């Protein structure tokens, strides 16, 4: 990206503030009294599964949907009741929505012409140079590849120097390699142009690579918000713990508590969690540890302060994924754990059926803020295979009763 051409686009973005936003569609509440502030100049990602309300939030900000209740402020100005074309906001649509009857250049100049900005053609060329597509200015959108269309869509939005740029899963249609490349380019452009970016995605990796701040959304609410590392290290809810990577979660009562750590009784085994990494310090609580922090041992380890041990258990599944190997370990009385082991040697360390112990540094555990009663004891398995098995079990039970 030529930094020379970005100079004239360098404008500071504006704050976005959502106050008590609620959106109901007939029969469904998509967003329930959402409060959110995005500081100017930041790259903010809304992350969540499909149907969590993240796209609706983005459309509300763009003005493409009307909020049922609440206010939207951009740069301190209330825009709640304004139409999309009156808002200083531009969107990079998931489908790109490049006008098929116009050339690339006319697409990019469209917004400038509407606002009667001087010299729209020169500015459009400049924006196209920023995304390195100026040589295709006279083509039609249909003659461009997906990645090129995505960059044109970005140029078309950015050329207007909006106070706020909305990105609606703009990389979803690209293949993995192109997506990685575009992620880096988007991040570079955002840094150079200095606009406020609001990026909606269901891809946790994308959100974590690009955004300064990630908000994880679920069922119309923000579950947790923060820097990517913070969210990953200290998930506050079971949903975040499992949507952002995988987690081994346990529940149990707090049995003892010191100034530094609390001890939780998990199926009769004491598990230690640092006090600062736990949200609740008494009563029944949920705790967890990331699979890559867990070590697999083939013999019972000697008890050691500052390490949690579970076992013995049995390896029920081994799956190799290149960089690491994933093991499933069934520990009687506790349940199944996931363990990621770096592939430092050839082949798996243990095989299915082997007797193993699992252990982790007590400093790596975390305690959730959830009501333990609300969440399943262990990570819910939502793979199609397990759903099929559950259905079959349910069906068989039904048949037996009949």
């Amino acid at each position: 990206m030529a930094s020379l051409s970005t100079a004239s686009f360098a404008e500071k973005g504006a704050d976005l503030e959502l106050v008590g936003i609620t959106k109901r569609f007939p029969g469904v509440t998509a967003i329930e009294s959402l409060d959110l502030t995005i500081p100017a100049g930041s790259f903010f990602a809304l992350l969540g599964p499909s149907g969590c309300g993240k796209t609706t939030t983005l459309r509300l900000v763009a003005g493409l949907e009307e909020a049922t209740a609440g206010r939207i402020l951009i740069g301190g100005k209330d825009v709640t009741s304004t139409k999309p074309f009156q808002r200083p906001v531009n969107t990079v649509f998931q489908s790109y929505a490049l006008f098929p009857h116009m050339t690339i250049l006319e697409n990019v100049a469209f917004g400038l012409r509407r606002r009667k900005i001087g010299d729209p053609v020169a500015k459009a060329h400049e924006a196209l140079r920023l995304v390195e597509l100026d040589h295709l200015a006279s083509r039609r959108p249909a003659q461009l590849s997906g990645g090129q269309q995505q960059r044109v869509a970005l140029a078309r939005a950015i050329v207007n120097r909006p106070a706020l740029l909305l990105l609606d899963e703009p990389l979803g249609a690209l293949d993995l390699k192109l997506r990685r490349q575009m992620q880096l380019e988007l991040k570079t452009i955002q840094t150079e142009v200095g606009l406020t970016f609001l990026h909606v995605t269901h891809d946790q990796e994308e959100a974590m690579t690009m955004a300064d701040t990630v908000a994880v959304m679920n069922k119309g609410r923000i579950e947790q918000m923060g820097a990517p590392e913070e969210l990953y290290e200290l998930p506050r809810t079971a949903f975040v713990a499992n949507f952002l990577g995988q987690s081994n979660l346990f529940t149990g009562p707090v049995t003892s508590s010191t100034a530094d750590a609390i001890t939780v009784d998990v199926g009769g085994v004491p598990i230690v969690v640092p006090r600062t990494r736990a949200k609740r310090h008494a009563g029944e609580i949920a705790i967890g540890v990331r699979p890559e922090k867990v070590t697999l041992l083939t013999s019972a380890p000697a008890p050691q302060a500052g390490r949690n041990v579970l076992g013995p258990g049995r390896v029920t599944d081994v799956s190799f994924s290149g960089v690491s190997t994933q093991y499933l370990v069934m520990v009687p009385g506790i349940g199944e754990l996931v363990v990621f082991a770096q592939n430092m040697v050839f082949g798996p360390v243990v095989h299915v059926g082997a007797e193993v112990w699992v252990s982790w540094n007590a400093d790596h555990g975390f305690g959730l803020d959830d009501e333990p009663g609300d969440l399943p004891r262990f990570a819910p398995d939502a793979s199609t295979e397990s759903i099929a098995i559950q259905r079959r079990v349910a069906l068989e039970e039904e048949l037996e009763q009949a």
Partner: protein
Amino acid sequence: MTSAVPAKAFEQASFEPSPRAGRRMRLRGIGLPIYTTLALLFLLIPIAYTFVFSFNDSGKLNIAWQGFTFDKWLTVCNTQGLCEAFGNSILVGVIATVLATALGTLIAIALVRYRFRFRSSISLLLFLPMATPEVVLGAGLAAQFLTLGTEKGLLTIILAHTMFCISFVVVTVKARVASLDPALEEAGRDLCGSPSQVFWRITFPLLLPGIAAAALLSFALSFDDFIITNFNSGSVDTFPKFIYIAAARGIPAQVNVIASAVFLLAIVIVVVAQVSRTARAKRLARQLG
């Protein structure tokens, strides 16, 4: 910050919403449905008129309202030549539809599936009948029959109607052929073998909705055609020609009866087809969902 206009400045200027805009938008929100409803009602006025006047207790002229009666519905064929003209229209419509649908479907398949010489000339030959005013089509055929000394009658009407229906059949069926996935036929060739089996078991059933639509369109075009018929019918009357001739002296209410009956029948067919299609789509969606 090298830009000439500070962004904030023009944001203030150009993003100020006018307080009126909101109200105007809301008015537009109900304006369009109201307009559409009124426009559709407007389209129905002559139909309603025709229907109502089929119950008019009129004499020979069916102009002023004389009182309600069912008589005209019961004495349809008492009007000299009316039922015969109607029968001719049905006969011509059916034969022309069968001929045009068969010929047009074959062309449509060839156009989509095969490469051949004179492709653009053939496309032009198919397009031209649709771009030619009916009066020219009618006069042309009449001039030809005149030159050849052909006696005008039912046969010449059928020949004429088949001609102008073919292009419409081609357009309708072609769209259907073009939307067919050739992989289905390839799979069929894999499974059943002979080309004729593939055609009758796979291609034809898949094309059937398109062919049916084309046939209905042909029949409607033929049944309602007056201009071309007028040039090529000689002394034979069809239903529209009967109306045209009667219009000079006044239309008997029995004409309204036949038109209303045909209208009701057509509407029933269309509504049943649409409702069953919607129901099928819903059922399918439920099964998949």
